[in-house]
């Protein structure tokens, strides 16, 4: 870094980047501020006093459908999707390290799952359940619909991980007498743990915020995004923003937790990791 001059393009690009970040976060910031509107405040600036009125409103059941219930369902569904995504994507990632019959087909299925429009998957699963006379529910059909979206992301992350993963560790573990199970649990998983945290983050947040794939699959009880969508058409008070603030706070908390876990793993690694070059 020392004595290296910035390229000519640096400052214009930096300014462009800053504008882009403002574009990303500006609107979100404005609704977070406006969710603290006074009781007589409206959907736009200026602030008409400051209060927690709209948050209180949110938790009163009669005001906005079933916020508390849908909130719980979405969190729970997100957690289930997260666990399944991590486990299934990890296993599939292991499988793809070797050539197996049909690996190309599975890969194309994953790509297809990403590019087939969500509304199509949603409608198809809805129809499937209908024709089989099964009742669509957030914990069955919607769970599957969400997995069809989170698993391809998980798989792609696993590809990236295992492309850079040396089989030497496993060979060493095997040479030292570890069983296949021990090799996976004590060698592979600890090494790729940070990436698994990333896969989990994708699993939870994509499910927690998924709207289109829940539309025909959630059944009788709404998940949170469906509830929010319903509110956008018939609520014209800052309670909408309060909801936005709460759900964004949850997303940020989850991202924060993932980052925290990630740094903790990295720190532990630096502490307990290689002693190369320390002259021990």
């Amino acid at each position, binding site marked *: *870094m020392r004595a290296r001059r*910035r*390229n*000519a*393009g640096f400052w214009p*690009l930096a300014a462009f980047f800053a504008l*882009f970040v403002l*574009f*990303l976060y*500006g*609107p*979100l910031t*404005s609704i977070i501020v*406006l969710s603290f509107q006074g009781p007589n405040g409206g959907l*736009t*600036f200026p602030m008409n006093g400051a209060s927690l009125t709209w948050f209180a409103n949110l938790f009163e059941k009669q005001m906005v459908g079933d916020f508390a219930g849908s909130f719980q369902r979405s969190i729970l569904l997100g957690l289930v999707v997260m666990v399944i995504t991590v*486990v299934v*994507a990890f296993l*599939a990632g*292991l*499988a*793809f390290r*070797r050539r197996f019959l049909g*690996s190309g087909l599975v890969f194309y*299925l994953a790509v*297809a799952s*990403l*590019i*087939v*429009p969500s*509304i*199509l998957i949603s409608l*198809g699963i809805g*129809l*499937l359940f209908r*024709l089989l006379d099964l009742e669509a529910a957030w914990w069955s059909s919607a769970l*599957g619909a969400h997995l*069809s979206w989170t*698993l391809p992301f998980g798989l792609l992350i696993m590809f990236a991980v295992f492309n*850079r*993963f*040396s*089989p*030497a560790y496993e*060979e060493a573990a095997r040479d030292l007498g570890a069983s296949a199970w021990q090799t996976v649990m004590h060698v592979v998983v*600890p*090494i790729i743990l940070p990436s698994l945290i990333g896969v989990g*983050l994708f699993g939870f947040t994509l499910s927690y*915020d998924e709207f*289109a794939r829940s*539309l025909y699959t959630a059944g009788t009880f709404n998940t949170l995004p469906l509830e*929010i969508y319903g509110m956008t058409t018939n609520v014209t008070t800052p309670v909408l923003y309060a*909801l*936005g603030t709460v*759900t964004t706070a949850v997303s*940020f908390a*989850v*991202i924060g937790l993932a980052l925290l876990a990630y740094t903790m793993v990295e720190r*532990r690694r630096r502490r307990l*990791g290689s002693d190369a070059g320390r002259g021990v």
Partner: protein
Amino acid sequence: MARSVPTDAVAIPLSSAAQGRGASSAAKPRRSSSAPYLQVAPLVVVFLLFLVFPILIIVMVSFWDYDTARLIPAFVLTNYDELLFSPVTWGTYLQTVTFAAITWAVTLVVGFPVAYFLAFHVRSATWQTALFLVCTVPFWTSNIIRMISWIPTLGLNGLINKGLIGIGAIEKPLEFLLFSDFSVVLAYVHLYTLFMIVPIFNSMMRIDRSLIEAARDNGANGWQILGNVIVPLCKPGIAIGSIFVVTIVMGDFVTVRLMSGGQSASVGLMMLNATSLLQYPAAAANAVVLLLLVLLTVAVMMRLVDVRKEL
């Protein structure tokens, strides 16, 4: 501590040493040759149940008949007939494709410089990670909330209109800012530029920096390096980003519904309207046509660039 966790720093030299051995050990017959099939089975089950079957069902139902209350198993072409010979359909598809094309162009024009800045101008790895994260965090928050969040900025009494009136640039608030085609595209760009940034950034990070030095040594200026070295090497990333953006926009209905204030149409919205009238076979026929269009678009893009190389 005896049980040490290897770091990435150790992994690199080891992995290059192990390359040759890895290949040979994979070739010799293993006791657990069924392992990959067991490992990939859960994934395949999910894809079969929640991707393949649903699509087959949609194709099947698209040939069914229906009345006001029921789906009637049959093999009729009326759904396709009504769909393909209606000018409304063609208008809607045209609008959807137009939205996709405009969004694609804007996200590329915005996303490329952002990725370029991150990859080539931010030199500290920590800053690179941090700024990359800043770009990705909104991806993990609610899309619907991010659409709604434009109301205070773009509305009739929003920040932009008030600001422009305040400085005397306009007398009446601009109506096209919110609930218009403009706000639809703006929301698309807001939501999906990330899908362009990440793959392009990924491609850029793989470019061997010595290629750029070589170009410079041979007298290329900044623009020439960009045009003749960086852009060609970023093509796979651009293709992946384009596939994401175009397919998402083509299948979208939420953004059009919320951001156009009900004034614009999209194929997805057309399907939604059909299902709200319980005309599932009509929606299914539309879904099949949309799927074919999306697959065709992707196939064209994949022909242009080998995407699998990028993984």
